């Protein structure tokens, strides 16, 4: 059994750890709130963009040429680009490892069908994992989540979009943690390119619209903006999910530390009691020896 002093030292060090994990939980909670606000802030923009796009498509139904846009073109899948979105730091439960596992499975799946895979890594965790194992990485983005900017999403899109238009790659997928709620995050695999055809929406209220340049050029531009928006949503979602996962992980750790301290306090009391009993019996037996 551990000595009294050892137990006291362990209690002190676990208390320190508890303070650290609890502080991390509070920080993650604050960042989560900001991340959720960011998600909310994009909503009006995204809705407006969809409305405009829907109107435009309903106006140009007759023009078949729109459907041959390069970003909508489906090809036989020989080269795939997977964008793997993780965080830059650990201590957030299975957040990073889930993405890495799903990405590895996806790569295997494509290699079995004879397609080769290139990666775009977002976040230090996936980048380090796949680089060490010698995977083909086109580009990586690190430390973007501290100060998340829309321009980053635009840069990522530009990177894979020109590879897709060049026909260097035939399909683009993104793998990320979807933020369902503060307690639930799930890894999602979404196809970014080729784009899913968009359904026309809305009425013909806007027949007297002037379009500049033409409808087709505007349509192409809006598709591009929509793609930027999708990428932006992925980054925001992943960021919120990371903070939520870290918050939960740190809460568990703090809880565990508390339980451990309770247990050690019992042990400490027992050890102290034993020590006192020993001391008393020593004194008593010492006195008895003197009297004897």
């Amino acid at each position, binding site marked *: 059994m551990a000595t009294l002093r050892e137990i006291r030292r362990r209690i002190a060090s676990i208390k320190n750890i508890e303070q650290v994990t609890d502080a991390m939980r509070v920080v993650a909670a604050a960042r989560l709130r900001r991340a959720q606000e*960011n998600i909310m*802030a*994009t909503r*009006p*923009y*995204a809705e*407006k*963009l969809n409305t*405009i796009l829907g109107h*435009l498509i309903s106006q140009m139904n007759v023009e078949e040429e729109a459907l041959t846009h390069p970003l909508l073109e489906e090809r036989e899948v020989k080269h795939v680009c997977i964008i793997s979105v993780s965080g830059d730091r650990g201590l957030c439960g299975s957040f990073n490892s889930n993405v890495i596992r799903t990405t590895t499975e996806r790569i295997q799946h494509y290699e079995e069908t004879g397609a080769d895979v290139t990666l775009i890594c977002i976040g230090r965790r996936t980048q380090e994992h796949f680089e060490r194992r010698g995977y083909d990485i086109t580009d990586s983005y690190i430390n973007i989540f501290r100060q998340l*900017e*829309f*321009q980053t999403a*635009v*840069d990522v899109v*530009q*990177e894979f979009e*020109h590879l897709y238009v060049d026909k260097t790659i035939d399909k683009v997928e993104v793998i990320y943690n979807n933020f369902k709620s503060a307690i639930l995050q799930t890894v999602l695999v979404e196809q970014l390119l080729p784009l899913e055809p968009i359904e026309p929406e809305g009425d013909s209220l*806007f027949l*007297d*619209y*002037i*379009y*500049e*340049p033409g409808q087709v*050029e*505007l349509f192409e*531009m*809006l598709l591009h*903006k929509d793609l*930027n*928006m999708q990428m*932006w949503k992925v980054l925001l979602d992943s960021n919120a999910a990371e903070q939520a996962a870290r918050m939960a992980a740190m809460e568990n750790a703090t809880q565990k530390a508390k339980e451990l301290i309770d247990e050690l306090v019992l042990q400490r009391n027992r050890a102290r009691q034993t020590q006192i009993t020993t001391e008393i019996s020593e004194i008593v037996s010492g006195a008895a020896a003197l009297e004897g």
Partner: protein
Amino acid sequence: MQSRSFHLEIRSPEKLIYEGDVTSVQAPGVEGNFQILYGHIPFLTALDVGEIRINESSDALRSMATSGGVFEVLRTGVTVLVETAEWAAEIDVVRAESALERAKEQLAEESPDLNRPSAEAALARAQNRIKVASNL
């Protein structure tokens, strides 16, 4: 004569940048700069990298740098969706200048894995921000 005003909303994916009544708005369309006044007919266009100028009802002129977006005029008002935009007063000129230098270097290097469209776009954005900031 007091000109009539209409409602203008400028949004980026990150936040609402401007909302209010204005008498005119100038914007960098892909086919050239244009100006919208009260009573313009419905109109949809794309914006290029450039400067958006707003004339508020109080005759105050405000301007911002944008990297492009969508500009929609409806009977009810004007909505501008910009990907990024900064008020002239908020532009970090030092940062813009270092971005300009970086883009120039990248373009001068001619390395094989250079993403030329991306570097050229960065150059245009940096030049635009410096220009808008200096007009203040």
